[in-house]
């Protein structure tokens, strides 16, 4: 008796993994939550930009470095491309090409964070950092945000929260991409079974998608 139940369990676990469409649907639903999470932030941004502080936002936006923002856009778009290419490669049974593309993707993500580091560092050294983080005053001098016009202060508040949250998602992306890389190497992902990789890809594109809106809003409104 107990034997047959165990068999049943085995079947069930297989069943759980077999539902390719179901997994993808679950992933999409998760992505909706991500979209709406950032959607709330964008709502706040638009409300302040359109209804309260249009001028201030323009002025504050001029302080951002378009080169760095644009560069990061390029990097993210490229990583999105290599991500899908990696998937196509695995579907076409080209494991090594897929690994190559995955590594490029991860490298791009790393590059994005490096650029972000320098960008934030530059802001901090000008005294532009959230005012309550008083421990930073030791390194960068007191925060100048409270002395800015109110709209500009809010702009920087939103800038740090939005790019910070986005950066957090990039790092999470790197973590799951590393898992995918591992799975491809040990043949856990192959031309028959690539649902996991596709779903991670979807997540990675959402990170890109959010940046597609962040970039013009933050860097180009000026």
């Amino acid at each position, binding site marked *: 008796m107990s034997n047959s139940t165990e068999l049943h369990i085995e079947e069930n676990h297989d069943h759980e993994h077999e539902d*390719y*469409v179901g997994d993808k649907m679950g992933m999409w639903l998760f992505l909706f939550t991500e979209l709406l999470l950032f959607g709330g932030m964008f709502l706040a941004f638009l409300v302040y930009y359109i209804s309260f502080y249009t001028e201030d936002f323009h002025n504050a936006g001029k302080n951002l470095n378009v080169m760095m923002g644009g560069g990061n856009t390029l990097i993210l778009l490229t990583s999105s491309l290599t991500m899908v290419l990696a998937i*196509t490669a695995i579907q076409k049974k080209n494991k090594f090409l897929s690994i190559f593309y995955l590594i490029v993707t991860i490298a791009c993500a790393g590059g994005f964070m490096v650029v972000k580091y320098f960008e934030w560092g530059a802001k901090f050294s000008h005294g532009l950092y959230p005012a309550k983080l008083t421990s930073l005053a030791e390194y960068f001098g007191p925060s100048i945000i409270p002395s800015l016009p109110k709209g500009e202060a809010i702009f920087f508040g939103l800038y740090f929260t939005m790019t910070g949250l986005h950066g957090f998602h990039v790092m999470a992306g790197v973590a799951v991409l590393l898992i995918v890389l591992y799975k491809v190497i040990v043949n856990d992902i192959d031309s028959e079974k*690539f649902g996991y990789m596709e779903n991670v890809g979807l997540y990675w594109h959402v990170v890109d*998608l959010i940046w597609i809106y962040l*970039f013009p809003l933050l860097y180009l409104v000026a």
Partner: protein
Amino acid sequence: MSHSNDEVHIVSYGTHTMVYIGLLSLTALTVAIAGGNFGSLTLLIAMFIATCKAGLVLSYFMHVKFEDRVIQMMVASAIILLIVAYGMSFIDYGTR
């Protein structure tokens, strides 16, 4: 309703690369336009271009174009919901 993997639509390297080039040109376009002076239209134009880019990413990179009907409808309704919620918020802020 079950789909086996062989039904999966494989997008070619070429298509992806074309999409990528499209995305790059659109990025260049927004940066260029932001330099010009369009006044209050700037935001609208920037958002329009961003939405075109997002459309490309969604339909090709994220495969929505080749997906099940159900998933397409889900994606559409989530996006529509978000847009409507934005609109509703501006019923208040737009009339301040």
